[in-house]
Structure formats: structure tokens, C-alpha cells
């Protein structure tokens, strides 16, 4: 048995001797309210076996009925990946006896997927575009969750028994399969990571899934094989599962390339198998020997009638697709005149959507960016949450920006208003009202405050009159203090100079 001490060939040497071939299978759990074939809820984290019914438990006499929204999501995903949506397809039974699926078969699609022959252009780190061709996207149902108890490691080998929770069984899944990806050379691990990241962005933009890799709503299986330089036939591939982060996708591909190269260089053969990625060590270890497609004895699902997407409906869904993330980023970069670095910072901070929404709500781009990228980013950092999780909306930020532009708030007051909104005190206007934060714009009360300050500091008045205009700052400061920061400092300064000149 192979262990975590697998020999690895240095990466540079791998590339001198072999060409990698990738195949990526991404499973995305749809964010529908109910499961694929029954009305059970799909919320993550419920107590075990509380979101189940006779259908998803495979009890005798139960029958599946297809979730229409899941079909729509599948079509939209297919369209976003430039696939052809077939005009007729069926579900199929994939038969296997493993307790993660209580029916002893998974309802999937086999030779008649709903979406085929797509292409997806991804942008690598240096800005180069790489085209990934999509083989298919098909609908299926998720499996239950197994917990293996006993044995030395708690892993599946040596487990004494397993505990099953079927809350996840039947949750709608879309499996997106690439055609073999060749020609990446040294960049294979990067291509794999960028592909999954770009796919995640597209799926998020479609609003079909929450695409949380950490919660398993987006999962990647990485098929890797090596061809000796000059060979024309693909080598034997392995399929690495359990890859739960973008970084892991990259590490797993790189590791498999190095491991397989060492096996081949030593005169061995790569075993076609499923391997599991270990997040801690970065190594892969063998899982069960894969059953062949024949072993699954696929056949058309007799309990479900075919799906025949209406052409007009598909055309309508295509027209309603959101702007692809990559195009949107390029447009935003041009419109707002951003450097590559500025754009990347915004994307990495998860601020792009928030900023564009703030701009859509009427704020100038520069102010919208400034709020989200500095003050609110710091606030999110302090709280240890994502920017989007802050209890303030883009519309509220736009309102604060508008209040400043109208002269109703100074920048300092604006921050206090935002603090109030974040503290749950209501909308910006409500916070202004309840905290009494409106700018004192009434000249007569300002003049009174200025005169009072001037009277208190006659020496400053002399300095200003003697030409030391900078000395006026002390008076401005005093007035700002007296008005609780609610005065417009620029106006106060004008008034100070006017009064001194008299």
C-alpha cells in the first residue's frame, strides 16, 4: 500500500520529461430551497436526518419529482459556459451499493446530459487567456454524509462502523466536466486553480449556489495524467477527491504530477484509482479502486419522464444571463480607470459587487471605492468578517456619500453616521436625526460661534491681522469643537478670515 512517503520527482524535472493532462470535474450544490427530487429543505448544518422524507431515504413506494428551478439553474449554468442546451435529455440510474445513497442508486445523467460542448475562457495570473473546453454539465443528486467511527485513524480503512446522515442526500448537484486540458505545461496547477476560481465567480454571478468550498457546496475532483514528451496517447489518470480550497486544487495537481512522474521514472505504472487529498500534508493517498462505468449499470430512470427544454425558454434565459465576471471586471477597470493592482485588491477584498452596487445607487465611483476599501474594510477586518457581511448596504453607503455631497455632512460626521448604521441604529437619515449629526450650515449661529472664539483668543486675531493666516486654524479648531464637529470647516475658515478683516 502506498503511504504518505511517496517519492516525488522535482517539479522542473517532471516538466522536462512529461506533459501533464488535466480533467476537472466540479460539483456545485444548487441553492434551491428544496432537493432535486423531493420537497425536503436543503439548508446546511441542520441536525442529522431532520431534512429527509420517504423519497430521499429511498423508502418503498416513494417516487421522485424533478425540481423545476434546478433544471432552470442547470440550463443557465450551461449557457454561461457557452454550452449547447440539448432539446431532449433523460435522467439515468447509476447503480452502486454504498450507504451514502440509500436507494442503492444515484439519479444522475449519463449519455444524455442537459448541456454539452461548451468553452470557458479563463484569465491566468499574467493576464494571458486560456480556453478550457467543457465536455458537459449534467444534473444529479448529492449523496448523504458518512461519519466513520473506530479503527486506528478514523478514516475509512479500518473503520468499525459508519454513521449516516441523509440531510444532504438528494440536494441538487450540477456536475461540470472539462474536456482533457492539454498544453498547460508548468502552469497545470495554476490553470486548475484559476479555472475553479473563475467558475466559482460565474456561478456566484448566476446566483445559483453559495459556492462555499469550505462547506462543500463547490467541490473539485482533479484528474491528472502524464504523457512522456513526444507521446500522443494520454497516460493513466488518477482522480483526486476531497480538494476543498482553491489552494488545495493547485497543490493536489502539482503533487500528483510529481508523484506519477516518480512512479513512471522508476519503471512503474500509474494505477487508475481515486485518491484523497490531505489538506495537512499536501499529499494524496489512494482510496477505493474505481468501479468502471460498466459496473454502474446505468439505465434510463423509469420513474422520471424526459426533460425537453423549450427553445424559446432557453433563448429567454440566455438573454437574461448576467454579464460574465471577467467582462464586468474589464469594463469596471476601464470605466473607473483602475490599475491592475487596484482592481485585484478590490476583487480580493470581495468589494467589487458592493462598490458597483453603491455606484448604481448614485455614488461617484471614487467615493464608493474609498468607503468600501478603507473605512469599511478596516471595520470588517476588526470584526473578522467578510466585507459583504457588514450590516450596511450599498444603498446606505450611497446615501451617506450623497449627504456629504449636499453639504449636509462633513467627512467626520459621515463616519459617525456609518458607525451608527453599523451599530444597528437605522438608516443614515435616521442616524443623522437621532444623533443630531447634521452640519450647522446656518451662518448666523456659526458667526456667533466664530465671534466667541475670536474673543477668547485675541492674540490669534492679531497674528491673522498681521498676515499669519495659518494662525486662523486655532480658531477654526475651537469653533469645530464648540459645534461638536457639525460645522463645515471650510465655511468656518472663511468666516474667521472675514471677521478678522473687519
Amino acid at each position, binding site marked *: 500500500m502506498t503511504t504518505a512517503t511517496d517519492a516525488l520527482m522535482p517539479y522542473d524535472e517532471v516538466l522536462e520529461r512529461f506533459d501533464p493532462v488535466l480533467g476537472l470535474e466540479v460539483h456545485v450544490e444548487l441553492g*434551491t*430551497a*428544496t432537493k432535486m427530487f*423531493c*420537497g*425536503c*429543505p436543503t439548508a446546511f448544518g441542520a*441536525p*442529522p*436526518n*431532520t*431534512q*429527509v*422524507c*420517504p423519497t*430521499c*431515504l429511498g*423508502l418503498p413506494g416513494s417516487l421522485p*419529482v*424533478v*425540481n*423545476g*428551478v*434546478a*433544471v432552470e439553474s442547470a440550463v443557465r449554468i450551461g449557457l454561461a459556459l457557452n454550452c449547447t442546451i440539448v432539446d*431532449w435529455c*433523460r435522467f439515468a440510474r447509476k*447503480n*452502486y*451499493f*454504498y*450507504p451514502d445513497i440509500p436507494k442503492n442508486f444515484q439519479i444522475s445523467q449519463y449519455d444524455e446530459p442537459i448541456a454539452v460542448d461548451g468553452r470557458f475562457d479563463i484569465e491566468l495570473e499574467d493576464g494571458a487567456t486560456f480556453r478550457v473546453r467543457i465536455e458537459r454539465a449534467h444534473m444529479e443528486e448529492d449523496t448523504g454524509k*458518512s*461519519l466513520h*467511527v473506530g479503527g486506528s485513524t478514523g478514516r*475509512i*480503512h*479500518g*473503520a*468499525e*462502523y*459508519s*454513521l*449516516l*446522515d*441523509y440531510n444532504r442526500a438528494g440536494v441538487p448537484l450540477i456536475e461540470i466536466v472539462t474536456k482533457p486540458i492539454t498544453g498547460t505545461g508548468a502552469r497545470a496547477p495554476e490553470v486548475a486553480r484559476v479555472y475553479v476560481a473563475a467558475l466559482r465567480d460565474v456561478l456566484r454571478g448566476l446566483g445559483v449556489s453559495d459556492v462555499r468550498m469550505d462547506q462543500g457546496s463547490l467541490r473539485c475532483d482533479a484528474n491528472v495524467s502524464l504523457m512522456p514528451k513526444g507521446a500522443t496517447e494520454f497516460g493513466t489518470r488518477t482522480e483526486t477527491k476531497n480538494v476543498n480550497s482553491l489552494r488545495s486544487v493547485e497543490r493536489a495537481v502539482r503533487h500528483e504530477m510529481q508523484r506519477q512522474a516518480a512512479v513512471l521514472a522508476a519503471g512503474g505504472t500509474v494505477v487508475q484509482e481515486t485518491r484523497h487529498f490531505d489538506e495537512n500534508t499536501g499529499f494524496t493517498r489512494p482510496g*477505493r*479502486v474505481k*468501479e468502471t462505468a460498466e*459496473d454502474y449499470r446505468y*439505465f*434510463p*430512470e*423509469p420513474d*422520471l*419522464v*424526459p*426533460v*425537453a427544454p*423549450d427553445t424559446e425558454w432557453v433563448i429567454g434565459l440566455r438573454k437574461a444571463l448576467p454579464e460574465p465576471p471577467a467582462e464586468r471586471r474589464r469594463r469596471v477597470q476601464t470605466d473607473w480607470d483602475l490599475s491592475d493592482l487596484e482592481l485585484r485588491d478590490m476583487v480580493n477584498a470581495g468589494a467589487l459587487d458592493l462598490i458597483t452596487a453603491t455606484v448604481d445607487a448614485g455614488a461617484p465611483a471614487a467615493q464608493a471605492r474609498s468607503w468600501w476599501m478603507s473605512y469599511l474594510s478596516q471595520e470588517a477586518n476588526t470584526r473578522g468578517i467578510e466585507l459583504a457581511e457588514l450590516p450596511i448596504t450599498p444603498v446606505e453607503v450611497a446615501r451617506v456619500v450623497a449627504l456629504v455631497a449636499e453639504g449636509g455632512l462633513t467627512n467626520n460626521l459621515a463616519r459617525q453616521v456609518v458607525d451608527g448604521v453599523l451599530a444597528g441604529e437605522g438608516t443614515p437619515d435616521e442616524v443623522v436625526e437621532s444623533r443630531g449629526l447634521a452640519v450647522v450650515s446656518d451662518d448666523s449661529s456659526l458667526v456667533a460661534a466664530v465671534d466667541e472664539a475670536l474673543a477668547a483668543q485675541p492674540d490669534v486675531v492679531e497674528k491673522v491681522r498681521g498676515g499669519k493666516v495659518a494662525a486662523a486654524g486655532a480658531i477654526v479648531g475651537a469653533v469645530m469643537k464648540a459645534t461638536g464637529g457639525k460645522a463645515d470647516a471650510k465655511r468656518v475658515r472663511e468666516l474667521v478670515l472675514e471677521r478678522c478683516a473687519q
Partner: protein
Amino acid sequence: MNTISRDEVAHLARLARLAVTEDELDTFAAQLDVILASVARVGEVAADDIPPTSHAVPLTNVFRADEVRPGLTQQQALSGAPATEDGRFKVPQILGGDE
């Protein structure tokens, strides 16, 4: 004349995680032959102009609204299980050491 071999029965038994004795391999091979031969008779009446079909009714697009419907409680779900633990179904070790 067996068209299903003992090896194929053994393979199917392994996929189905069933323990089958040597004697049973012969018994089942013979029985599966009869079943397959019976089903194969359908092919005798199928002409070239009859496409393979999986459904007797000419229906497509039977969809359900994405609305939550009441299911089972945990207690109800587990009520038929031979063994449970922590609200979960308890099943024997699944994969042998050789798999």
C-alpha cells in the same frame, strides 16, 4: 448453455456487496440466464423503425415548484433502522481492506 458465467455472477455479487457461496454462483448463473433470455424476446418483436423507449407515456417536463414540503422527523426517519447512534443510521464497515 450459460451466457452468464460464474465469474460474472461473482462480480455482480461483489458490486452488490452480497456474500454468495460457490453453489449459489451456479444456481444464480442459470437463473439469470433464464431471465435474460426472457427479456431478450422483446428484441425479437422490435423492428428497426421502433426506437428504444424508456417510458410508456409520451410526457416530458414534469416539474415540481421549489417549495418545501413537510418530511419526516428524525425519530420517524430512524424508526425502521436496525441500529442508530447520535441521530444517524448506523451501518457496518463498508469497504473491505482490499478496496
